[in-house]
Structure formats: C-alpha cells, structure tokens
C-alpha cells in the first residue's frame, strides 16, 4: 500500500511540475489594453454562475465553445439518425470532412465556397460567440462567425407553411428560415424555425434537411453567466424520428465584445488551391 501511495504522489508531483513549466510559458501581458480588442482573459475572468439569471432576458454577448473562453459543448448533433430512404440518399451525397473525408474531396458548400451555413448549422457548428438583442417584437441573434444575424418574431404570428408552388401564400426558402419565439417560463425561451434553404447542411456532419423541416430551439438561462441551447429537428421527409442537433453552452462575456470571423470566398479559394488540395490529393504531390 505504501508503494502504491508513493507512486500516486510521484505522479501528482510530476503533473504539478509539468503544469508549472507550462504556465511559465504563458506570456505576461502588461501592455496597455484597448477597448476595441478582445482579450482571452476577458472571457475567462468570469468564474462561476455570477448570480441568478435575470427574468426573461438573454440580452448580451456570449462566448461559445470555439471562442477561446474554454466553453465546452454539452452534446454533439446526432451522426446517424433514423433516415427515410430519401434522407439516406441525400446524406450519402454529402462528403463531410468530419466523416473522414479530406478537404480536397469534400463537397461541403461552406468549406469549398464559403457558402453560408444557414440555419440550423449556424447554431451548432463554429460556435464562437453570439450577441442576443431584443426589441419590442423580435429577438435578434447575431453570430460572430460569418457576421450574420437571425430574427425571431415574438408578435404571435404563425409560421408560414408553403415554400413551393405558386400563390400569394408561398414563401421563398431563406438561409435562416422563418422564426417565431416565446418565453415558456422566466428562464426558457423557445424558438421554432422553418423554410430553410434546403441546399444547406443541417450539421457539419452533412445531415440534410428539407425546406419543410421544423427546428425547435430551447434556450435556457440557468444563471447570470450560463446559457444553454438544445435543438431538435423534425423533418418527416428525411427522418422517421426527430433528430437531436445537440446542446451547446454559452458563457457571459464580461467585456461584452468579440471580433468578427468571416470566411472570404477569394481567401478560401487561395487556401484550397495552394494548401488544402495539394495536401489531400496524391496526384498533386511533388
């Protein structure tokens, strides 16, 4: 037993030594701070829940899992949901990098062309930071990645239901679809969205969706500093059961700032031509 204890202590001491060495590598930044810059310590300084959540209020700027704030994703989207035959056929055409396909062979419209993610992918992929703002009849969700915003109507209107054919009641599909939302209790906001452009992917993993898909988002603010979002997609044309699009977590950013991150088509073409395609295409190797 004594030897076992000695072994554990030695291991822990070793870990602490390595940790100290690693910490010593971190630069000590005493430079003047600019209010126009985002500093990693701004996000990370916010420890703990920070107090109770305000009632029916998500307003503010939030850090997601890829923001540099150390926020962890809670649940990833499903990767093998219950496809219908059509859903399986469409899914088989999507060559997603996260399914083991090299960038050079991927047909992800965002990876290859910077096409907009569209909703719901923009709420479950590249979750960097977002700002939520509410005006009299709408809630806006503004996303750092690609500098886009969504609007969620709260005036009691019904969602449109026709996105094909002719007629005054037909609505064109859009990248973010049509959204309505409401508070279901003091800390939970539920939004429903439909009419999303069907050429977009629902997830990084290449899950397809139809224009008639309906996505339900459930935002829950459990404390001043914590906001979670769970998403479910109902799309009977492509899936025989509702599909979980996962759960993401957000943390309140003390400085309430973030800077943009956009995919620029000309830049991504340069990246693919000079870097990604030669790295992933044997014939292109020197």
């Amino acid at each position, binding site marked *: 037993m004594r*030897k*076992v204890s*000695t*072994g*554990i202590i*030695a*291991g*822990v001491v*070793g*870990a602490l030594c*390595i*940790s100290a060495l*690693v910490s010593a*590598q*971190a*630069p000590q930044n005493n430079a003047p701070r600019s209010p126009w810059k*985002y*500093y*990693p310590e701004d996000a990370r300084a916010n420890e703990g829940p920070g107090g109770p959540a305000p009632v029916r209020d998500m307003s503010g700027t939030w850090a997601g*899992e*890829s*923001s*540099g704030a*150390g926020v962890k994703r809670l649940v990833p989207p499903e990767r093998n949901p219950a496809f219908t035959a059509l859903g399986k056929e469409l899914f088989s055409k999507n060559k997603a*990098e*996260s399914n*083991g396909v*090299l*960038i*050079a062979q991927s047909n992800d419209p965002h*990876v290859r062309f910077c096409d907009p993610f569209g909703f719901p992918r923009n709420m479950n992929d*590249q979750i*960097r930071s977002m700002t939520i703002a509410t005006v009299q009849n709408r809630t806006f969700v503004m996303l750092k990645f690609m500098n886009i915003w969504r609007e969620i109507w709260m005036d009691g209107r019904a969602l449109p239901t026709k996105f094909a054919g002719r007629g005054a009641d037909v609505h064109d599909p859009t990248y973010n679809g049509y959204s309505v939302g409401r508070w279901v209790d003091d800390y939970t906001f539920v939004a429903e969205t439909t009419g999303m452009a069907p050429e977009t992917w629902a997830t990084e993993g290449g899950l397809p969706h139809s224009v008639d898909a309906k996505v339900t988002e459930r935002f829950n603010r459990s404390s001043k500093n914590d906001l979670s979002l769970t998403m479910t997609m109902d799309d009977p044309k492509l899936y025989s059961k509702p599909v979980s699009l996962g759960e993401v977590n957000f943390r309140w950013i003390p400085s309430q700032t973030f*800077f943009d*991150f*956009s*995919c*620029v088509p000309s*830049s*991504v073409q*340069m*990246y693919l031509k*000079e*870097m*990604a395609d*030669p*790295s*992933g*295409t*044997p014939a*292109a*190797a*020197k």
Partner: protein
Amino acid sequence: MRTRILMVLVFAGLATVGSPTFAHHGNAAFEVGTPTVLKNAVVTEFVWINPHPLIKADYKNEKGEVQHWIMEMGSTVSAQLIGWSRTTLAPGDVVTLYVWKAKTGAFAGRFNKVDFSDGTTMRDTQTGGDDGGRADTGVRQ
C-alpha cells in the same frame, strides 16, 4: 505490480495532455507526430487569411535543393489570442519552422511552431482547436 499499473496510468494521462488535437479542419491529411524541422527557412510570404493563415517559406535541404513550403495555422482570431498578428512573420525572415507534413509528400503541412533568430518561439493555436490553446502543450494560456 499495482504500483506499476498506477504509474503507467498516471503517465499515460500526462501523455494525453500533450496530444495535439484538431477541430476546425481535420488532421487526416497530415502526418501528426514528430514535426519536420525546416532550419533556417526563409519566409517568402505570410498570408493572414481565414480559414487559416498561410506561411510560405523556402527551405534549402542538405543537398542544397530549395523546397518551396506552405503551411497552415489555426484561424486568425484564435492566433490573435496568443499574440499573433498579420506582421508576426514577414518576407525575408530567417526562422526555423516545425511542421506536420502532408501525407501526400507535398511540401505542405500543418504549422506547429517557429523559432526566431532572437531565440524566441511562437506556437500555433491548439493545432486547429481555435480555443487559444498551445500546440505542443495541449493546455490553454
């Protein structure tokens, strides 16, 4: 025996801490392990773009042959969080570059770190993790 098993588990855990991970774009194209070292490489271009900044450099091998290399970093925003800017590297800089080479054999790869002539070192983000981490330590600042 139990002591040995415990020690193995402890050190296996420590080794895991240092393992590089990728998130934005995958690592399938690269030989992730011991990086290729390009000593006294001459930077020819530093392209500060998304999704990944590109470092282009000429490296002369032991035979005197010049190889034109290109390597990608994490995103601009994540690199900024650990001190990078569009002027961190400039054409003409003589540096030592560490890169995980493409499996195709092309002179391309995933950037790991750079040693400058003044003895300082700058690392990539957590190898694509975009969370401000450090490439070869696996921990955040």
